[in-house]
């Protein structure tokens, strides 16, 4: 991740062991904070899981319309809900604490210590990434174990798809953290970005039912590409290069923009 390279850009007098201990302490406190103020856990884990269970209990979702290429409506929603969780964590869970730390002066305070403030950014990324991995694992596990979704055709392709999806979405979150001046602004920007992107992911109209114009747009949105990559890993095999490259492009562009624009105070 970009933030990690930022963090290591400065030499530190602490020995390597001490550096790891210091980073571990920051990660620990960030984890405590996301547990004690579980907005990310609710939006990024509980909400998609709840939707998955509801969708799994709707009889009509067990049908396999011709347009869905053999999979049921429920199966089609599994990657959409995984993308839902990833987007919540990346676009709200990641930037909100960072912006509030800047508001509180936490980042400025840290920049007077031997530890650079970018470590908080990296720690927050680690915590959100761990939650994201847990979300995806739980969603795929519950969908196969409890609701009979087929096992993914290409597990390696699925892991890769999830990884690049996370990179792309977290990069968007970092850019939000970079440009939003207040927590309220970050919240508004995050939500205003989340809902249109979720539309293109197919939350309201699955991609299989989208008119070709919408589908073309969807292919180039981060969540559309994420769903496309995860869906092909589950249904057909290793995902095509296009959605993976789209996501990598988002990760690279948004990360470098965030890096350039991020204000530490």
């Amino acid at each position, binding site marked *: 991740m970009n933030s990690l390279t930022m963090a290591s850009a*400065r*030499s*530190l*007098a*602490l*020995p390597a062991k*001490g550096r790891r*201990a*210091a980073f*571990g*302490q*920051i990660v*620990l*406190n960030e984890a*405590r*904070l996301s547990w*004690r*103020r579980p907005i990310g856990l609710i939006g990024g884990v509980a909400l998609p899981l709840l939707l998955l269970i509801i969708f799994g209990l709707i009889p009509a979702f067990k049908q396999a319309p011709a347009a869905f290429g053999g999979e049921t409506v429920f199966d089609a929603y599994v990657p959409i809900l995984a993308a839902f969780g990833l987007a919540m964590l990346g676009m709200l869970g990641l930037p909100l*604490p960072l912006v*509030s*730390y800047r508001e*509180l*002066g*936490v980042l*400025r*305070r840290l*920049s*007077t*210590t*031997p*530890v650079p403030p970018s470590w908080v950014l990296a720690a927050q990324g680690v915590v959100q990434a761990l939650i994201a991995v847990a979300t995806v694992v739980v969603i795929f596990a519950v969908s196969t174990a409890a609701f009979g979704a087929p096992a993914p055709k290409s597990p390696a392709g699925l892991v890769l798809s999830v990884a690049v999806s996370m990179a792309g979405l977290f990069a968007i979150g970092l850019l939000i953290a970079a440009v939003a001046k207040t927590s309220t602004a970050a919240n508004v920007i995050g939500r205003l970005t989340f809902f249109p992107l979720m539309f293109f992911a197919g939350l309201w109209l699955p991609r299989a039912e989208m008119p070709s114009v919408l589908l073309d747009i969807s292919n180039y949105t981060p969540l559309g590409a994420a769903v496309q990559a995860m869906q092909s890993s589950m249904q057909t095999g290793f995902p095509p290069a296009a959605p993976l490259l789209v996501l990598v492009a988002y990760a690279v562009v948004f990360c470098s923009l965030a890096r350039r624009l991020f204000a530490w105070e």
Partner: protein
Amino acid sequence: MGVTGTSAAPTLRPAAEPGRARPAVEIAHLRKTYGPLVAVDDVSFSVAEGEIFGVLGPNGAGKTTTVECAIGLRQADAGSIRLLGLDPRTDRDRIREIVGVQLQASAMPARLRVGEILDMYRSFYRDPADVGELTKALGLAGKRGAYYKSLSGGQKQRLSVALALIGRPKIAVLDEMTTGLDPAARRDAWDLIAGIRDRGVTILLVTHFMEEAERLCDRVALIDGGRVVALDSPAGLAARSSGGKTVRFLPSAPFDERLLAGLPEVNRVDREGRHVLVTGTGELVNAVILTLHAAGVTARDVQLDSSNLEDAFVRLTGKQPADNTEGALS
């Protein structure tokens, strides 16, 4: 509080001759502008090791900008800065290890506990202080399990000071550390600072409380309009900038004012209704009373006013120190 206010701890005052030892802080011709705004025009001072040095001045004088440049938080436009010989522009990493900073207006996440914050900051340093000892010294021992949001203003300030000290710094920079504290908490904070210095830490104290500077500081730099307008001990500054002392009394009988005006101790004589105001220096009271006595006049209702740092502040900057009443001990 009079001129004698700072003589309470005379043994603690180190010799303030620059050049004798390596100064802890050395700032020469510092300049910092924000666009067209000149925040710091030309500031120079030097702080000896073990000294408590006050940076004093009205709001917007450039105090905070000066210390922020000193610790490397901001880049100076011109001038040189050395902290124990290190340049914040090139040795910032090393400076972060030996300088503990308490910033104005910096908070912590509401849902972290005091102990968790302290443990985290402790892990940033190579040879940190003991958390138990530090919390005890700062009156936070019983608060280690408390959420940051549940702390009072004074406790938050003390935690902030604890974080500034947890790396066992050689220099502590404290910016307005007693602002927002009630008088009792402020007195505790003063005792604390004196205690820190006794452990050999050099303290750079930014304040706008005159009484705080008088009580604590070995020397102060009075900054106004981005320049040092005076640099002295608080008592020296008060005496130097003022017209000296004023004796106010009610004469038992009319007398010739020239009798007093001719004395070497007296600078001027004024009338204030039936009272007489004599301004001067040295053994003013004795001189006045003896002279009047010789002329057969008794001085009644005698009052002596010594000017203090606050008078110096007003005289040198033309401004009233901010929330001065808040700083008064009740």
